[in-house]
């Protein structure tokens, strides 16, 4: 009320003071309120993003757990359905050997048992190789990929080729395995869904980036499709690729070639200098 008391008749000073002070205080309070509300809005938005990221992580984790379980079931099935009967048959032959004293029959059953044990060894070796390819362990990613592509080309259904331009030094073995699994999954998807006639893989590096590119001429997906599939409940393999690459802080891009003829998948990884080993070494 001090502000509204006029000192001298006709003076405009208290009015100026009144409106000026009230106006300034109103502006200040408005500014403060705006700052607080704006910040709360930004924080709410960030929390929503964090929740979305958390959901995405949960989805990836579920995908990798499911895939791991599927892998275990496959190994269990291989052991139970293939190795189990083989060993049981070998045991039967050896049992027969104890009952039958005829020398020729004994030799025959020992020979049969040996054959079956050889088959079992081969079967177990195959299971073991599917878990950890020996070529990858001993000779590195380049050899393992070439091996895989030779097998695909050998089947005659598709022409698969690879070229490593700059792979003089190997990556960490665990990183090589992750990259190999990603390539396997991508190639598997191409074989299953794309109806392509060829796959070509190239590797190169630029600065501290490590690139792997896969081209094929079949049906493929683009980055938008990939993101959609990643958010949905289908596309387990793609989620698994995503979660594996997350471990390496890598990125993956799906796109159609400039000529609109080929589909291209690019894997981009950051290469740490201390993590490299001379290529070809065990």
């Amino acid at each position, binding site marked *: 009320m*001090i*502000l509204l008391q006029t000192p001298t008749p006709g003076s405009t000073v208290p009015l100026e003071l009144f409106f000026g*002070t009230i106006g300034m205080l109103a502006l200040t309070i408005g500014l*403060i309120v705006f700052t607080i509300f704006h*910040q709360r809005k930004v924080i709410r938005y960030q929390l929503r993003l964090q929740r979305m990221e*958390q959901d995405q992580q949960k989805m*990836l984790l579920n995908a990798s757990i499911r895939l791991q379980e599927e892998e275990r079931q496959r190994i269990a099935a291989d052991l139970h359905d293939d190795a189990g009967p083989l060993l049981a048959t070998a045991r039967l032959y050896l049992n027969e050997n104890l009952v039958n004293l005829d020398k020729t029959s004994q030799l025959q059953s020992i020979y049969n048992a040996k054959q079956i044990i050889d088959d079992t060894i081969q079967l177990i070796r195959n299971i073991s190789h599917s878990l950890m390819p020996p070529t990858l362990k001993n000779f590195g990613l380049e050899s393992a990929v070439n091996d895989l592509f030779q097998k695909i080309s050998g089947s005659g259904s598709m022409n698969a080729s690879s070229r490593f331009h700059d792979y003089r030094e190997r990556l960490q*073995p665990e990183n090589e395995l992750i990259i190999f699994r990603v390539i396997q999954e991508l190639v598997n998807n191409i074989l299953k869904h794309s109806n392509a006639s060829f796959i070509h893989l190239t590797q190169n590096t630029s600065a501290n980036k490590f690139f792997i590119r896969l081209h094929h001429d079949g049906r493929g997906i683009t980055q938008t499709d990939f993101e959609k599939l990643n958010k949905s409940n289908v596309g387990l393999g793609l989620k698994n690729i995503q979660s594996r690459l997350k471990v390496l802080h890598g990125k993956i891009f799906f796109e159609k070639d400039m000529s609109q003829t080929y589909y291209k998948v690019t894997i981009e990884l950051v290469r740490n200098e201390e993590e490299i080993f001379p290529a070809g070494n065990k």
Partner: protein
Amino acid sequence: MSGTVELIYFISEILSLILFLLFCLKKSGVELKIVFFYVVAEFFVDFVSTKTAWGARSSFMLLSIFTIIEFVSFTTFLYLGIANRIIKKTIAGCAILFSIYLIMSFFQTEKDHFDAIQASGESILIIIFCIIYLFEQINKPPDFLVYSTPGFWVILGFLIYMSGTLFLFIISDRLALEERSKYWQINNFCNIIKNILFSVAFLVSHYSSKHRSIEKPYPDMLENPYENWKP
């Protein structure tokens, strides 16, 4: 009424000083120490100008000195609180130029009236700097709410005080001595609010340093599972 307002004003000053000494003396940063220094200077100037005969005679000179102290304290606080280098340099440049102007005008002008231009200029500059500070706070990725930081409450105190007294300082030249002392209650009201906000800042500083957590908001569920694995 003016006696009551002045008493509350003194109490608010003492309250903020006590709160700083109790809660922030040992663990506060330079920023809050500057605020404390400013409140001490304000208390000293108010005490001398109202309780001593020399102070009453030289109140305009004391106010001029206090304007310089106030400007330097506020700009230093804002300079330390702002992160952007370009803005920091701009603030430092403006602050140095205006401080030189304040010091020069202190020596060149007679001390028989209130330094309205200097005080108004100071208010405008501080308001601008405060808006820049708030703008930076808006643009920064927020780690925690702005009102959980002591800096926000200090800035709020600056803004309320400076915007509330700006028009009083602008027109104080045109007021008679009697009118000026009557309208000076606005300054006292704004000072009370400012000191209360400074007290809140000291309390917030004490409690936020006690409870601040550095934990991640949620664990990364895809931490590298291959970390300890060797083929």
